């Protein structure tokens, strides 16, 4: 996933993802593989009003963004979708930094160079 928007007022990955999607990703990086039901139970503790539909839609949206992967698992409880992360948190952050710096370099080359060299000192 290439970030297309950076919110200066938000912290962490919420700067590049909507808040609930960012929370889901934070949990998914811890779990690596989970069902929408498991994520729902986790998020429900912090957001008592959250609904299963919201979690399912957002997890599938994260699949569309390429951050999660959906596959069918047949287990004791029958068939179900399981979601897994496609990238580590570090790889994702690296991609975000690269995209932002690339954008700055192509739009404000001199100022970016100047600022980066000032930072080095």
């Amino acid at each position, binding site marked *: 996933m290439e970030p297309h928007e950076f919110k200066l007022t938000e912290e962490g990955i919420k700067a590049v993802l909507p808040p609930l999607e960012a929370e889901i990703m934070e949990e998914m990086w811890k779990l690596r593989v989970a069902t929408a039901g498991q994520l729902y139970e986790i998020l429900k503790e912090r957001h008592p009003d959250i609904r*299963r539909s919201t979690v399912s839609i957002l997890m*599938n949206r994260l699949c569309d963004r390429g951050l999660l992967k959906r596959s069918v698992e047949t287990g004791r409880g029958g*068939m179900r979708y399981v979601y897994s992360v496609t990238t580590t948190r570090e790889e994702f952050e690296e991609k975000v930094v690269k995209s932002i710096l690339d954008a700055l370099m192509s739009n404000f080359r001199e100022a970016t160079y100047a600022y980066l060299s000032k930072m080095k000192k």
Partner: protein
Amino acid sequence: MLYLVMLLQLMLPVVALGEFGAKLIAVSALLLLPLYLWAYTSEPNGRYHALQREQIPWLYDGIAEMAERAGIKMPRVYLLEDYIPNAYSFKNTLVFSLGLFEVLGEEEILAVAAHEIGHIKNGDTKLFPIIAYSRYTMALLTVMVVVTSKNAWISFGSLMLYAFYELSRAEYLKEREFKADHTALGLLHIPLSLKYALEELKYYEDLRASVKTSALPSIEPSIDRRQGSPLIETHPSYDERILRIMIEVGHIAPYNKLQ
């Protein structure tokens, strides 16, 4: 009403075009018969997986119990690999998408199953393919009558009849949905679970639509369900169905009692 309009629509070519009109009807029926037979005999494959009892016993047993109460044979049950919540029935078969299990609880899924069993019990799974294919016959006959008839009034009448047929068909299909809900309420241990299921599915569709429209063009997810709404709705809205369910289970007085 639908059957009357269909009968008139079938009579019009004969009245207007005589023997040629009768031949047109015969040819249309012959063309569509293989389609109907194909639809009625084809079996699910690919992303469909037959459900075994040991996989999801509560679902299998719940369906078996409701089928017995409805007086139908135990339907075949398939799970469909699709993340969008959906359920439907054909012949004596029920299909549930895997997405349904992500958004609904057990009682709500059983309520959806009860609605589909309602369709089977009410004969809709046999009727719906006939109605679907007779629609093509009606359209074909209308075009044929308009093209071949030299009488402007007959052409106009045929077009009007077709428009009326479409409206009657939509109304008829909506009534069958309500009837399936009515049947489901009689099969369920917790009738209100159908209302909760519909509320959750409505919430899902509304939220998904808002997520899609509010997304930036560059990060638009490739959600793959058709978004356009048909010119004439053949399904009642969730709100209409929920209202009827609440009236039936006695939570709200029917409109005429409020007057």
